[in-house]
């Protein structure tokens, strides 16, 4: 098995190297045979997918066959591991996850190389760049982190098993989603660099990459929030985001990718910000690689990171090469990136995108700065400091509030310029609605002057209402106009409106999802927790809930032994549910983990953790968290996914009208 896998990796490297070199030669040498040479490079790139896929299949089959002669399988699997987790073995360790990276990259490359007829030359350049990235990962897999390394000495009877924290259903989908996001940014990066190298005329390359970027961004969003949900459900500390370096690594490319998705519209529509967009997508790709470096080099300590290894040096070298290449071609061809238009007014869509980009990049810088400051501090003053949640929350929350404000105002601004009167007219009612919400919350007992966190929470909710009302008013206003002309009801009109400009209205749905998530975050200010030793019949009261310990139960299966509490939950004197917080002891890895029992409602989560037993009294310790509004975070993610899908749907075909009629027609759904 290991020989087949190793051979496949070696062959994959040879194919990618050929695809890169032959593709490059075909582009540089403009001879009669360059077309044929380019075609062989393209086919080698396609074949590389099949070979890397074979390597991945070999590793998964080895996991299912309990082939512990392969060191990776020994370290990350065991005989009694359930089948889905055996499959997840592929990405559960350092070497396997790098193979998974290479597999996804070759899959993206495959799609790109199959669609080459869209623009043969541009795709040929992009294919060469992707082949170069593939070569790096395959070099790594062959010479620094080979997943098919064999065990020395006698063959072990069983493996060490999968890390207990990873034995959770979401872990089967969270890493693939995240990796699809990370790896996917290679494609827009490749197109951007290709367009720069060949001085590609016009903005067609942006239109080609728009879908790639949105799909990638969607995957990364899912990956980030699946990770948050996993942390919430498995780690048992009652939170979903701890500003851990690995979490930060996934957030940084998401922030720059989000900035790119906005600013790229300025290039498409107005021919502006060309240099900015180019560097934004370069940075997003480099941050994806940097995130991979962070989690694997051991440069920062993290609860999620893979084991420390020497592959960090490889990533540093690769990042340096990418940066140097981008800089070289930028300096060489920067004249190609001159702006075609000027900014006409400060109150315009263009300037809102500029400020939106600025805030997203400041947030990204803060995350990067906070993540790396411990290293810098050790270097400068000889002592390492910790940069944890208090720092990130304090600096990033005001930036997030400003972003929310821009999310509300931005869509109300037209391209080129907006009159103050128009802004006032569109903004008045949403602003009144937001203010009334604030007054209502204060009347209900929220005290923003007591603590800055209450103030932030109130502002978050008010600004979210502001965004929601502007989004709703945009839909309703456009829907009404369509309804007047078509006679359809308002809902049908709004659906038609969204279908006429899916990108715009899909974007609004994404914004709506974002504010739903922000409301969920705002609830964290009111979190409560309580911890207590609980024997039979003992009670604990938290908020409106009373928990009564009914019994403790044990169970055993080949993979793990478990113990859980049976807790009856009462509200208003009436039993509403029974919760079973659990602890598991995984036999192969000899490690323990918690399984949280959570009663989630739109109002709050009752989150119960069985922490273990007090060795002195023998009594179990139960910790209960009452976390308001958490469910809205997950609902918001679904809304974002829906919005992204809507934005990916092609627009409804434009209605052809004669020129004089067009001049009189009110532009609905296709303009401001």
């Amino acid at each position, binding site marked *: 098995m290991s020989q087949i896998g190793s051979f496949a990796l070696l062959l994959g490297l040879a194919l990618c190297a050929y695809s890169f070199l032959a593709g490059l030669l075909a582009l540089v040498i403009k001879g009669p045979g360059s077309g044929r040479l380019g075609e062989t490079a393209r086919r080698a790139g396609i074949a590389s997918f099949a070979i890397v896929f074979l390597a991945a299949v070999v590793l998964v089959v080895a996991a299912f066959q309990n082939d512990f002669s392969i060191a990776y399988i020994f370290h990350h699997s065991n005989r009694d591991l359930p089948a889905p987790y055996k499959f997840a073995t592929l990405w559960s360790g350092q070497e396997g996850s790098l193979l998974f990276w290479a597999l996804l990259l070759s899959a993206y490359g495959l799609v790109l190389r199959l669609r080459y007829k869209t623009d043969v030359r541009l795709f040929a350049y992009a294919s060469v760049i992707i082949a170069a990235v593939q070569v790096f990962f395959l070099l790594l897999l062959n010479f620094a982190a080979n997943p098919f390394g064999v065990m020395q000495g006698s063959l072990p009877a069983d493996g060490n098993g999968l890390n207990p924290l990873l034995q959770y259903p979401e872990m089967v989908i969270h890493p693939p989603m995240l990796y699809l996001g990370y790896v996917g940014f290679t494609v827009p990066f490749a197109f951007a660099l290709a367009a720069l190298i060949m001085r590609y005329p016009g903005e067609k390359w942006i239109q080609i990459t728009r879908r790639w970027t949105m799909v990638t961004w969607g995957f990364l969003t899912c990956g980030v929030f699946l990770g948050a949900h996993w942390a919430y459900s498995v780690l048992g500390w009652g939170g979903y985001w701890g500003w851990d370096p690995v979490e930060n690594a996934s957030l940084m490319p998401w922030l720059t990718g989000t900035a790119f998705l906005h600013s790229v519209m300025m290039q498409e529509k107005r021919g502006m910000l060309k240099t900015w967009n180019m560097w934004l997508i370069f940075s997003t790709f480099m941050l994806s690689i940097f995130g991979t470096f962070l989690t694997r080099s051991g440069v920062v300590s993290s609860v999620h990171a893979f084991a420390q290894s020497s592959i960090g040096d490889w990533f540093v070298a690769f990042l340096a090469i990418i940066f140097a290449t981008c800089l070289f071609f930028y300096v060489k061809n920067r004249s190609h990136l001159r702006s075609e238009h000027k900014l006409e007014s400060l109150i315009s*869509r263009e300037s809102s995108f500029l400020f939106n980009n600025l805030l997203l990049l*400041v947030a990204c810088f803060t995350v990067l700065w906070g993540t790396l400051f411990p290293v810098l*501090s050790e270097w400068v003053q000889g002592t*390492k400091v910790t*940069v944890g949640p*208090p*720092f990130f929350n304090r600096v990033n929350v005001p930036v997030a509030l400003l972003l929310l404000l821009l999310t509300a105002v931005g869509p109300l601004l037209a391209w080129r310029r907006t009159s103050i009167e128009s802004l006032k007219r569109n903004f008045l009612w949403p602003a009144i609605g937001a203010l009334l919400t604030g007054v209502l919350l204060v009347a209900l007992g929220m005290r923003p002057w007591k603590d800055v966190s209450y103030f932030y929470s109130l502002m978050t909710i008010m600004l979210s209402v502001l965004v929601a009302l502007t989004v709703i008013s945009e839909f309703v206003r456009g829907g009404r106009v369509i309804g007047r002309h078509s006679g359809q009801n308002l809902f049908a009109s709004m659906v038609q409106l969204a279908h006429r400009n899916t990108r715009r209205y899909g974007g609004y749905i994404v914004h709506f999802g974002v504010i739903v998530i922000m409301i969920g975050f705002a609830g964290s200010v009111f979190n409560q927790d309580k911890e207590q030793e609980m024997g039979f019949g003992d009670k604990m009261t938290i908020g409106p809930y009373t928990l009564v310990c009914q019994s*403790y139960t044990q169970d055993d299966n080949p993979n793990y032994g478990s113990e859980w509490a049976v807790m009856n939950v009462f509200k208003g004197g009436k039993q509403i549910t029974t919760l079973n917080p659990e602890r598991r002891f995984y036999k192969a890895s000899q490690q323990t983990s918690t399984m949280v029992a959570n009663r989630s409602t739109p109002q709050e989560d009752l989150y119960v953790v069985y922490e273990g037993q007090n*060795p002195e009294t023998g009594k179990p310790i139960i910790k209960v968290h009452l976390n308001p509004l958490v469910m809205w975070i997950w609902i918001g993610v679904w809304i974002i996914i829906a919005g992204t899908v809507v934005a990916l749907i092609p627009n409804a075909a434009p209605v052809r009208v004669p020129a004089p009629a067009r001049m009189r027609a009110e532009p609905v759904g296709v303009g401001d």
Partner: protein
Amino acid sequence: MGIEANVPANSLFLSSRAKRRTCSSPSSREAADSSSFALLGMTRISFKRGTQLILLTLAVVTLLGAGDESARVNDLGHRMMCVCGCNQILLECNHVGCAYSERMRGELIAAVDRGDNDDLTLQGFVQKYGTTVMAAPTKTGFNRVAWIMPYLVLVLGLTMVTLIVRAWRSRPLVLPAGAVAAVHGAELEHFRDQARKDTEI
């Protein structure tokens, strides 16, 4: 199949945590606040009820103190990290078999009980566990740079964007020769296309 059992004798999951105080900060804070309001309402009572007032005041001060202690433990515990390597906030560490968090929480409660102020308490932890025990950089020496930089970048960015916007606005619009003349054919289509782009998102 689950097996019903009493508290198991063979404890599979022995936690290293010993007794802990029950800590529910928001509710205790509310209790303290309502007590203060009660105290304000009692200022105009007659002398006859002076003894009752003194007793009530004592009770309120005691309750207020208790609430403060709980809130302080909660606040300080969220400003420090567990040093076992789990990378979690001290009061949120649920690391199985953690050799540090239980002891550190005990020390924190003891320091607050002793009446040590916040600075003294935190300094004590830094001396014992090193600077990494603090969850955020202090605002002294080089660590100040950590706090200043993000704001500095924001201010610099805002200045840059403002300057860029000004420069763009003052850039003269270069009109092609004969731009005022009527346009036809492909040129008209080009302008129409631009107009369509300008009015789309």
